[in-house]
């Protein structure tokens, strides 16, 4: 396969899909570069799998266009798109041996006998299953089955590799190993890859860029570090980093107000911003509520977890989680009033959603 340096190898514009009148995916615009690894991340029901199936051609969008290298493929059936797909439940053909599973796509594309045999051998070497060529899928472990599925999807040299929650049925150890192998394979072969997951760690581990989705919409697109450290929306803040989201008021002179007090924020605040996010571990306990960004809060619950203590506080009638590390005495009774400090460099202004 020749490498493509096109930045918009695969592009989706205005993609929408609804089932029985309920929109599942709304107005999606996205471009993926050749050789790039992209991950759709979101909670279940956010439309990420539907979006992947639309890319695969297993579903047809109600509106919008999908193009591959400039050619419109919106109405092209899956078998002519030449994409490889790996399914959550492996979907290996139970009546075919490992070798015949991998050869299946090659036979569909009319590869000759010698090339097929060579390619199957090559793919099974790649996923380190060459010894298992004559076994049936049910004689393999879950991790091995998923490796066969990957070999099968890659055998016919697809333009794009699609993976639908490929590691979620595996146990934690195998999952981590397979995930690392997958990432290594992807960058070595320069594969254009889309992976769907609800696990942010997995997304961070395998993707160049992460597409965070919620309720059928794209919330944010960015690298792992971008979406973790600079979430744009309250949803991304909560979903990716367990951020506390606090409602704030804007004052007439453009400052933010929390509980009637001024809140200093280092980052630039867009006018109209009414929410800020702060991570539980960034909030500090203070001796008193005097000074900038110091606030009075009420303890609702304390939970000692060994390394850290988790406090649930009520600040300006909003619940918030705080994690305190170290040996401080944190045995506050519920109802106890304490002071907290919100460091200005840790506060992230958030957009609507």
């Amino acid at each position, binding site marked *: 396969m020749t490498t493509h340096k096109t930045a918009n190898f695969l592009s989706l514009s205005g993609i929408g899909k609804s089932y029985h009148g309920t929109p599942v995916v709304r107005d999606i615009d996205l471009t993926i570069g050749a050789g790039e690894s992209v991950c759709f991340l979101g909670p279940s029901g956010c439309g990420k799998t539907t979006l992947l199936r639309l890319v695969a051609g297993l579903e047809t969008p109600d509106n919008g266009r999908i193009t591959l290298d400039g050619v419109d493929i919106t109405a092209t059936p*899956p*078998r002519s798109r*030449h994409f490889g797909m790996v399914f959550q439940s492996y979907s290996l053909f139970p009546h075919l041996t490992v070798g015949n599973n991998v050869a299946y796509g090659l036979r569909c594309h009319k590869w000759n006998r010698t090339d097929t045999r060579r390619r199957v051998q090559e793919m099974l070497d790649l996923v380190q299953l060459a010894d298992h060529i004559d076994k049936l899928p049910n004689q393999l472990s879950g991790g091995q089955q998923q490796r066969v599925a990957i070999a099968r999807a890659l055998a016919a040299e697809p333009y794009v590799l699609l993976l639908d929650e490929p590691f979620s049925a595996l146990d934690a150890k195998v999952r981590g190993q397979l995930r690392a192998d997958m990432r290594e394979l992807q960058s070595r072969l320069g594969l254009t890859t889309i992976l769907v997951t609800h696990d942010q760690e997995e997304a961070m581990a395998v993707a160049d860029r992460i597409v965070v989705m919620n309720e059928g919409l794209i919330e944010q697109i960015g690298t792992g570090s971008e979406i973790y450290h600079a979430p744009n929306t309250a949803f991304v803040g909560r979903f990716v980093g367990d951020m506390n989201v606090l409602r704030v008021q804007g004052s007439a002179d453009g400052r933010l107000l929390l509980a009637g007090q001024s809140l200093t924020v280092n980052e630039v605040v867009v006018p109209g911003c009414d929410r800020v996010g702060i991570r539980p571990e960034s909030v500090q306990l203070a001796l008193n509520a005097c000074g900038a960004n110091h606030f009075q809060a009420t303890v609702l619950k304390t939970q000692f977890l060994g390394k850290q203590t988790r406090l649930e506080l009520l600040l300006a009638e909003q619940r918030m989680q705080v994690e305190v590390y170290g040996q401080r005495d944190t045995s506050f009774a519920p109802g106890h009033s304490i002071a907290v400090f919100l460091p200005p460099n840790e506060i992230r202004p958030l957009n609507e959603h």
Partner: protein
Amino acid sequence: MSTDFIAEPMARSFRWRFGRGQIEILIALLAALPLVVFVLYPLWMILRESIHHPDGRWGLDYYDLYIRDPHFRQALFNTLTVSFWATLATVFIAFGYAYALKRTKVPGKWLWHSVILLPLFAPSLIQALGVQFLLGRNGIVNRYLGTDIDIYGFWGILISNVLYGLPHAYLVLSVALSGADARLYDAAKMLGAGGFKRFSSVTLPAARYGILSAIFLGFAINISEFGNPMVLGGDYNVLATEIYNQVAGQANFHLGAVIGVLLLLPVLLSVVAEKWIARRQTTISAQATPYRLERSWWVDGPMLFFLGGIAIAIIAVMGVVVVASLTRLWPYNLSFTLQHYSLDVPGGYGALWVSLKMSLMAAAIGVVVATMGALIVQKLSSRLRQVLYLLSVVPAAVPGMVLGLGYVLAFNNLSTPVYWLYGTVLLLSLCTVYHYHAQAFLIATTGLKQIDGGLQEASQTLGASMLHTTRHVTLPLIGPAMLSISMFYFMHSMVTISALIFLVAPGTTPAAISVLLLNDAGNLPQAAAFATIIMAAIISVILTVKGLAWFGGRFLRQRRVG
């Protein structure tokens, strides 16, 4: 990399999408056509015959005539009475049998399970023959115990119908009893429930839909059973034999049709009720802990006696037929002979060939019809799917006698375009195929459902066309289900009587009906011999097919890449 490949298939797919709705309707119509011709049309002909007068008038006069006649009212009453008691007894015994096998630790479960399924491998008449050899006028009991039992009538029908219905009810009930959640039993025990209380408050409620299902299934089987009442009924008339008397005896098609419609109604109701209930049978929750059986001779001992008693009854009734076929003059001269196997009757062994030919044809046609039907139904959009599904399971509610009479009215008619079918073995096969269509269709549908939908999608994304996917993924995976369907058709075609009784002609009489005719002629030993031959033929064909399937499976798996 070139992307030219995309332009051409895209144009093709556009054309396909354009005509998709029409093509779908066309395929649905093609699938529905045979069902209309071979199920709905014959049923309509019966209904028409029952309300259409020779002078062209339409009216319910024949029904009126029927209701007024005390003889017919008696037959209706008899049918309901004997079916009621036979159903009750069948379900009661089958429940005990299934309970013993699923919920106690009795030894020899494999054996007990096989014995109760035996009646499925024999013509339904075998029970009637066996009961005669045991309890009939010249039965072994009356002969050697000096009793004077008259088995012909209510009791004869009851006993033979119960034996015939047992395996069917047993299969339903053993499914209902197989899943038990041990947590419920532990909870009941902790709350202080004794053994009987646990049975009535946990076991019975969990199996209640299975029990109701078995009751309606049993009732539908009993009410439409023809062979047993024909042989053992004596003066005790039931609807199924009454149709036969009216049509075959007096050529009174109008009254036959009226009885057919009357027979159709309760069976239809039972089948609808059974389907409705079966849907409510809850599947056991995934968190359930399996019920652990404990040995308790207080329960297992009596259960073993019960199983033994029923199994002996089944084996005795069927076995006595085999034994009687090998004795010179049952029960007076018990010396061994093969003379009854000469079958010196019109037709003779020819009937066996007719049966084999018809059954193999039914198996071949049936497996295609049922599999195609299930495949098409699965691919259709929801409304068309519901219509075609309903049409496919309608035959379950049609008693064989009624379908057979419908075939005579529909196809023994010069104005029918397929009149040439009448009197051929092919029509007998088709009649059997559609008589058992619902069951075969459901086997195929279940088989298809077990195939993960993801496999077809995986095949598509790998570049396979719909045809390629069907040939290389779907068909190989439903292979076992298809094998079951063809075996199912073969077995039922070999033993069925009711649907074919009106369709046979001298050259095309299947063996199962020859048994009935031999019995009618009072030639019981030859009837027994022929029934034995049928059983042997079924068993040997099934063993051969199973063997071939086993070797075939091994052969296919050995295929290598390249």
